[in-house]
Structure formats: structure tokens, C-alpha cells
């Protein structure tokens, strides 16, 4: 099933029974690919049941597309098997790295933006898209540091990656605010220049506020609370330019009950409906065909 330009929710084991019992009017669900890479068992059982009713998006968090070394062939094969089994409407991964010398560093680590990194990431995205025989969406990261070796902007890097590989983009609006606050740049300027014609999906989430060692405010991409007003405002700004797009509520830690998550999805749906009125019906279908094309 194709993923519609509606609000979707990250699927959690704790909510599966409530969802299958009540069949709520949610546009689609997203899962982390790595949570469904066991050989069998209840996770596959409930995901199969969910897929009979709802469109699915598969979101990889562990392929380490930004690694200087080769992609993990075994992990690529697991991802291919998962995508063949469930035929999700969307498949996405991150502009980040997480593995080095055989160790998996369970986080989305930042990359220097350079010609060398672009070559590497583009090769890996090509291999991923060839392996899956479909285009993927690549997500902008939440970052806390920057590199001396960066000699291009994140936006130029993403534009070049799209041009080289034909991939689409997953725009995480919360990540934009987190990176902009931490890197002292304007989230609005970044969003206003983002290549929205390549975007096939949006992410929304909450973040934690802390202070760094010098007392400066920093934001942590925590996914542990409701979407704050600052992120809703940036979301509305994005929709005003893009028109409606599949939009995920990401809430992975300190999970609320299902009703609370459903209400968050409802808050995104209201803004999506308003955006329909603003941009007309033609915009989303044009964008979806971009995300499908190679």
C-alpha cells in the first residue's frame, strides 16, 4: 500500500493490541527496520496483521550509510528480506554513520560534509537502492558538533546526493530545530532553502533542552515527549511551501498511551488539511512520483 499524505505514527509493541482492537483512523505506521530482523516470533505476527489494514513505512537506523568503510552486506541482505516480505510504501535511512571496525555505535553519528564524504555516501545509497530495487529517502540528521573538514553546507550536500543517486529525502523538522539551535544557524532559513521537491516524508518529534559546558542552550533529539509549539510552527512553514506530505509522529522513549499518540497524529492531520487548502491537490501527487522515480 502506498503511504498517503496523512499523519502516521511510529508503531510500538505496547500499542499493537489497542490498534488492532480499535482500528483507529491513522494514515499509516512506521517501524524501525532493525526491530523486525528476528527470524520469527510475535513481532512479525503483529506487523503482518498491521500491514493488512494500514500502509507501512520501513525506517532503517543501523545501515551506517556514512561509513568510510563498506556497507555491511549481511545487514543489507536483512533489509532486502524485510522489504520483500512487507513491501512497504516507503523505505528510509539516515545521513549518518554508526559502525566502525566491526563495532556498532548505537547512535546516528555526524559526518563532515566534503566531496570525499559525498562520494562515499552516494556509492552507498546507490548500492542500497540497487539492492532493494527501489528508491529510498535519506533523513537529515540532528547534530551536536561540526567538523573542520566540512567544506560544504548540509543543504548543498543533500542536493548533490539527490542529483547523484536519484534518492528522495526525509525531512525531520525537529532535527532541523535541534541542529540549528546547536549550530547557531537559522532553522527558518534552512527550511526555506530545503529542496522540498525531493521530500517524500516528514518527521515530527519532541526534544530535551539542556545547557552545554559553557552554559549555552542545546537541544537533544530525545523523541520522549509531545511535539512542541516551536516544531509545529516550523512544520506549518514547511507545509506552506510543500503542500501535504506523509508526516510521522516519532515518540520512542517515555512512551505515552495510545490515545495520547493518536491525539498527536490528529494535531498533524489538522495542519495537513489546512495545507491542502493552501497548495491545491496537484502538489502531493507530483512529489510522490518523484520519490518513486529513479
Amino acid at each position, binding site marked *: 500500500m502506498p503511504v498517503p499524505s496523512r499523519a502516521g505514527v511510529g508503531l510500538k509493541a505496547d500499542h499493537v493490541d489497542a490498534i488492532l482492537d480499535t482500528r483507529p483512523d491513522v494514515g499509516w505506521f512506521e517501524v524501525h527496520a532493525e526491530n523486525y530482523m528476528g527470524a520469527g516470533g510475535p*513481532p512479525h505476527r503483529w506487523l503482518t496483521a498491521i500491514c493488512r489494514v494500514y500502509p507501512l513505512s520501513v525506517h532503517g537506523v543501523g545501515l551506517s550509510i556514512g561509513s568510510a568503510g563498506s556497507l555491511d552486506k549481511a545487514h543489507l541482505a536483512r533489509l532486502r528480506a524485510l522489504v520483500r516480505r512487507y513491501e512497504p510504501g516507503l523505505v528510509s535511512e539516515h545521513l549518518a554513520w554508526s559502525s566502525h571496525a566491526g*563495532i556498532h555505535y*548505537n547512535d546516528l553519528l555526524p559526518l563532515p560534509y566534503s566531496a570525499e564524504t559525498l562520494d562515499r555516501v552516494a556509492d552507498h545509497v546507490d548500492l542500497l537502492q540497487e539492492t532493494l530495487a527501489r528508491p529510498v529517502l535519506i533523513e537529515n540528521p540532528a547534530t551536536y558538533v561540526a567538523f573542520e573538514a566540512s567544506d560544504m553546507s548540509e543543504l548543498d550536500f543533500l542536493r548533490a546526493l539527490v542529483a547523484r543517486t536519484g534518492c528522495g529525502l526525509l525531512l525531520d523538522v525537529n532535527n532541523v530545530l535541534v541542529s540549528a539551535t546547536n549550530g547557531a544557524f537559522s532553522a527558518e532559513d534552512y527550511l526555506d532553502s530545503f529542496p522540498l521537491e525531493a521530500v517524500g516524508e516528514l518527521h515530527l518529534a519532541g526534544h530535551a533542552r539542556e545547557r*552545554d559546558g559553557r552554559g549555552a542552550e542545546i537541544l537533544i533529539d530525545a523523541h520522549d515527549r509531545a511535539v512542541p509549539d516551536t516544531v509545529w510552527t516550523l512544520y506549518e512553514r514547511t507545509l506552506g511551501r510543500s503542500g501535504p506530505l506523509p508526516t510521522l509522529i516519532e515518540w520512542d522513549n517515555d512512551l505515552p498511551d495510545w490515545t495520547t499518540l493518536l491525539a498527536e497524529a490528529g494535531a498533524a492531520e489538522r495542519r495537513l488539511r489546512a495545507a491542502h487548502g493552501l497548495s491545491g491537490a496537484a502538489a502531493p501527487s507530483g512529489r510522490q512520483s518523484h520519490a518513486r522515480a529513479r
Partner: protein
Amino acid sequence: MRGLADIQASFAAALADPERPAPPALRAGAETADSTRFDIYRNNIMVGLIEGLERNFPVVRRLVGDAFFRHAARTYARHNPPRSPVLLLYGRGFGDFLDQFEAARSVPYLGDVARLEWARLDAYHAADADPLAIDRLAAVAAPDLDGLRLTLHPSLHLLGSRFPVGSIWAATSGADPATAVDMARGEDVAVLRPGPTVELRILPAAGRTFIEGLAAGRSLGAAARAAAEAHADFDLSSHLSGLFGLGAVIALETGLPVDNQPQAEK
């Protein structure tokens, strides 16, 4: 300019060792100079691994308390980082680690409980297979019984402990809080998931010898003789009905030559 491989090597080395300074490749600009920025990555990784171990070993955690568990989990994670991006089964070596963990000396059964919890986790994610009912055994011709091979469920785990590990698990997990725990008795347990839920069974004497023989690919007759050698009162029919009752048998194979025994898979 430093290359990508070089940058990632120094970044990874600093992640792995909290005593090291932040990697030199980071931009020294006003916004991001502070080393606490790099510590966010260290912290994200460690918190993620500790929470993963908390999810995977809830009974160990309950036995030792939150603070001690976090200390043990942090030490384990630092020395045993994941080798795979699939973290569903992270902590396979946690039981062996706890055996050697000085601070856990006073709880000598902790390692066995951790191995039991990991077996339950592995069974949860193991391949699905439909168990055979015991009446399938009645359809096997009598002369074929001795050489019969039983294919066991892919989720099956066997554990032997000098402690009552199954009873400790049942009493602590909430599965059966009234379970009497006799610390003087060791227990052998079988863990498997014949359907949607993981089952735990405390095995009778010689049960583990018998099932291990079958799992190693021995014929029914050979596995039964080995069990009877270990325990004179071994009763094959009660062990077979227990094994089938548990849902542990998924296929029967007759007609294999007796001296051509397949090798164990586990």
C-alpha cells in the same frame, strides 16, 4: 585535510573511551567547541545500551536493584559493545560477564538467571514452527522407533544450573510469585516458544541428557539409552509425552542409517 576514515577512527576511539578527549577533527568554533557536545554522543550510546539490557534482563534487574544493574550493564556495555546493528539479542554474553563480575560475587546464581533470560529472548525471536502432536509417534512402525530422528523446535534452549534457576525466575518475574525456591537444589530447564508465548519448563532428572542427545542428532533409541545410563529409573514414555506436550518436536524422520548420525546444529 583529514580523510573520512581517519575522522571516523578518531571519533570511534573517543566514543569507546570516556577518559579520552573529544576527537581533534571537531570544529573549534564558538558554538561547538565545548567537549560536553561530544559527550552527548557518548551518553546516547551508553544510555541506549543500558536500556536495551534493562529490557532484555528484567529479572536480573529485579534481583539486584536498579542502581546495581545500571553499574553492571554499563561495565558490560563498555567492554562488550554490540557487533551488529540488530540489538534485539544484545547481551548474549551478559551471564558469563556476571559470573566474573566481582561486585556480584554474593549472588552466585545471577549468571544462570541471565543466561535463562537470554534464552527466553532468543526463543521469542526464533523462527516459527508448528509442533507435532504425540499421536504422530503412534503412526511410526515399531521396528523404525529405535532409529527415529526427532527434529526439535528451533526456539528450544536447554540450561543446567547448580541453582534452582527456573524457580528463581518464576518467583521473581511475577510468572508464579508463590513458587518455593529451594536453594539447595539445582535445576535443569527447557525454554521454547511453540506458539505466541515463550514457555519455561523445569525438567525431570535425565530430561536434559535425553533432549540434548536428540538435539545432537542421535536416534531416539540412542538418546534414550544414554539417558538411562545416567539415570537408572529413566522412563522413556513419560519423557516423550513431556517433550511432545511441551511442543518441542516439529518433525519425525525414519529410515536414516543408524551409524550415519547427523551432527548437532547447536
